[in-house]
């Protein structure tokens, strides 16, 4: 009994130390944002200082909120579009027998193995040609078609939506889109929510494409805003770190709050399949 208790204490202690190590970079970031720049270089800012509001002012004087607005437009837009596209396609592939369905599904599986960077060079050329450079469109529309999203919705719908429900809808005289909206959607809400979270994170974090297609400050998303803080705040390290806190912490809190759905989402495919 005693050894069991000892073991429990040792294990818990070990995991807490590990958690502290993992959280340490976040902690130092938040602490640094509460100090005056000079003091960050001089001392060891492990305790909160009183300069956070001043730093915040500096950050908003440089209009950090624009990056936030752009990131929200991109992430919300891409997520909604992607959900619509994935649900439609996944529903068709799981609940209809039609010519070519098998081929289309195999095609989607192949797309999941091909990294998007393969076509990056021509993608940028294409964006230039259709005038989408320095707009948010390349970050909203192309990411809507992900093989993963379709694969995920197809698998979930196949398991969670009984054919009889769809049949009964047809007997009641509902049209096919009506069946999808009124009968299928309510059954697959959890899948939509998980996929929405995953999509949101991916699009919010997106870096490579925005780095290439966004060259004007007013179009920057949060990640591009963060790496360009140098030009906005010069040597004001504290202001830069405060901006970094603003760019990461709210999202971190949001995702932590929804982590159950999120975790269920990312593990579902692998553990079940």
């Amino acid at each position, binding site marked *: 009994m005693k050894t069991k208790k000892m*073991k*429990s204490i040792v*294990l*818990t202690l*070990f*995991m807490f130390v*590990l*958690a502290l190590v993992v*959280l340490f970079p*976040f902690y*130092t*970031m938040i602490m640094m944002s509460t100090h005056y720049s000079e003091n*960050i*270089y001089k001392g*060891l800012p492990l305790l909160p200082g009183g300069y956070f509001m001043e730093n915040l002012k500096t950050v908003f004087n440089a209009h950090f909120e624009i990056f936030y607005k752009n990131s929200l437009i991109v992430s919300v837009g891409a997520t909604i579009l992607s959900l619509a*596209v994935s649900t*439609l*396609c996944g529903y*068709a592939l799981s609940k*209809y027998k039609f010519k070519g369905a098998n081929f*289309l599904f195999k095609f*989607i599986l192949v*797309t999941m*193995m091909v*990294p*998007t*960077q*393969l*076509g*990056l*060079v*021509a*993608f940028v*050329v*294409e964006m230039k040609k259709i005038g989408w450079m320095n707009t948010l469109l390349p970050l909203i*529309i*192309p990411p*809507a*078609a992900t*093989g993963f999203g*379709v694969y995920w919705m197809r698998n979930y719908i196949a398991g969670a939506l009984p054919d009889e429900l769809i049949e009964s809808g047809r007997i009641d005289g509902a049209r096919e889109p009506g069946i999808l909206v009124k009968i299928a959607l309510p059954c697959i809400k959890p899948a939509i929510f998980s996929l929405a979270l995953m999509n949101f*994170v991916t699009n919010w*974090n997106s*870096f490579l494409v925005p*780095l290439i297609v966004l060259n004007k400050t007013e179009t920057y998303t*949060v*990640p591009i805003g963060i*790496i360009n*803080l*140098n030009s906005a705040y010069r*040597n004001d390290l504290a202001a830069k770190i405060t901006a*970094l806190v603003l*760019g*990461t912490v709210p*999202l971190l809190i949001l995702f932590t709050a929804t*982590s159950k759905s*999120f975790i269920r989402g*990312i*593990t579902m495919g*692998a553990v079940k399949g």
Partner: protein
Amino acid sequence: MSGDIKSAGKKPALTVRMKKIQGKHVWPYIFVLPFFVIYLAFNFYPIIYSFVISLTEWSGFGESKFVGFANYVNIFTKDPYFLKSIGNTLIFMAFDIPIVIIGGILLAAILNSSLLKGSSFLRLATFSPYITIPVAIGVLFSLLFDWNSGMINKILVGVGAIDSGINFLGVPALMRVVIILMICWKYLGYHMIFFNAGILGIPTELYEAADVDGASGFTKFTRITIPMLRPIIEFLIIMNIIWGFQLFDEPKVLLSPWTSASGGAGTVGGSKRAALTAIWNLYDTTFGTQMQYGKGAAIAYGLFIFISVFSGVALLIINRNKRKGEI
């Protein structure tokens, strides 16, 4: 009379039914259309077009010159950076894949232990780096490991372990260590979550039977837990190979001149390009310091060959072992 009414009532019903069947045939095509239109326009077409570009010499503006496979010959034989970038990426993977897989399994096993208190907090804490913006991760680590103002150096000097700060981000070997640490920091919790879900799916009867046989905790771990987690381990290894070759955001930002006085900052790929990843090389060749679209496209295809070969070989090994296991 009555027969007439019947047939009159039947006829429209029949056509409605016919229409419905037709509708049933048309709708799936309409439903899959948005995906394929967007995919073909913004993924498939660029992939094909990129191959065409890879056969030319082109700066992105004006005329392009057809050069056949010269770009491919160049990157595989003459260009000093393509193979180096692949090598760098492989070095990172060689260290971080075993660490996150083994570490993830161990942490998941601990997390599932009934002896552990506060497991939900620990799960969240270790998972949080995965949902942090990759750019912010790069910045955070550049702050921590900065030559002059970095917390790590200050602590090491403070406890007397070293006399003056170490230039972590300016020395190739140390830079690589920091990048491997950074990747492990980000992905350890992610892997733990997977293995945790896997362990929860193992039937408890297996452990009960082992208890009856008097198996130790260690035996249960190696004989039940590990074999049962095998499909997940295999899945994660393949995914890690695909992700590993795509590494870009974190190293790029880590070595960008974000903090004012970090050594080796701002150079492409860091000091001696020891941290130049494959995608970073693609980015720099095409959109960064050079404007060589043809070469960039060839790099993308060259990288794709490596990804295919490595994940293909991994799949082969996995399948062969599977067959052996069955016999």
